[in-house]
């Protein structure tokens, strides 16, 4: 199962990268989400997968049941999901603002900071 999820993670990464290269900010954001999911799945499967049983000590037991899933990757992914979401939200609003200001969602047309007609360096002392 680990290997299948690993392959799925690769698929996520592929799709994420592909969309990130699409030049359209909204598509890039979709790509970012996919890439984030892919990376989370990488962490999950790198921590080896369990099945169904969560790492929660049931009712009166002191420890989780045998065969419970590995809790550490879950905690790491939780942190990563939240952080990723915060970043996603920021970049989304940024894209929105950029669209408003620059009238472009195509990164090819957003060239204010590095305008295409940059001057040649002056040939003088």
């Amino acid at each position, binding site marked *: 199962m680990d290997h299948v999820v690993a392959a799925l993670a690769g698929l996520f990464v592929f799709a994420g990268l592909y969309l990130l290269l699409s030049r359209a900010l909204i598509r890039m954001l979709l790509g970012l989400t996919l890439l984030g999911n892919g990376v989370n799945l990488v962490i999950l499967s790198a921590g080896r997968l369990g099945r169904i049983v*969560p790492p*929660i000590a049931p009712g009166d037991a002191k420890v989780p049941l045998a065969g419970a899933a590995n809790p550490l990757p879950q905690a790491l992914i*939780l942190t990563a999901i*939240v952080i990723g979401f915060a970043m996603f939200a920021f970049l989304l*609003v940024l894209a929105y603002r950029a669209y408003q200001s620059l009238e472009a969602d195509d990164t090819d047309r957003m060239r204010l900071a590095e305008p295409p007609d940059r001057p040649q360096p002056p040939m003088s002392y």
Partner: protein
Amino acid sequence: MNTLIFRTVAPLLTAVMLVFSVFVLLRGHNEPGGGFIGGLIAASALAIYGMAMGAEAARHALRVHPIAVAGFGLALAGLAGMLSLAFDLPFMTGLWAMFEIDRVEVAISTPMVFDIGVYLVVFGTIAAVALALEADEGAG
């Protein structure tokens, strides 16, 4: 969205969601849940209120700016960790105090306070952003 039904139901829905969010927060230590999800639910509640009554009304209902709530949450979480300084313990050492109220054991602990801080930060931040977006919508 500002239908009469929605305006009537929204405060109720908000109240229910807020209570549920606190429940999710508190049970987090033993069952799935916790500060983050709780905060998200609470923020959604306020966002729904804002949609129904207007962002200004929602902010008014909260009295303080939501981002200040987030700040308070972060300060709370940080200070909960600092408490252990007084006991010659490292940062964020869990300190537990057990009480028995009505034969139910109630635990007050710094991890819990910390989780409340998480709840407040998530609530405050998401609510602030949501209200700002709603206000922006209204203004735009």
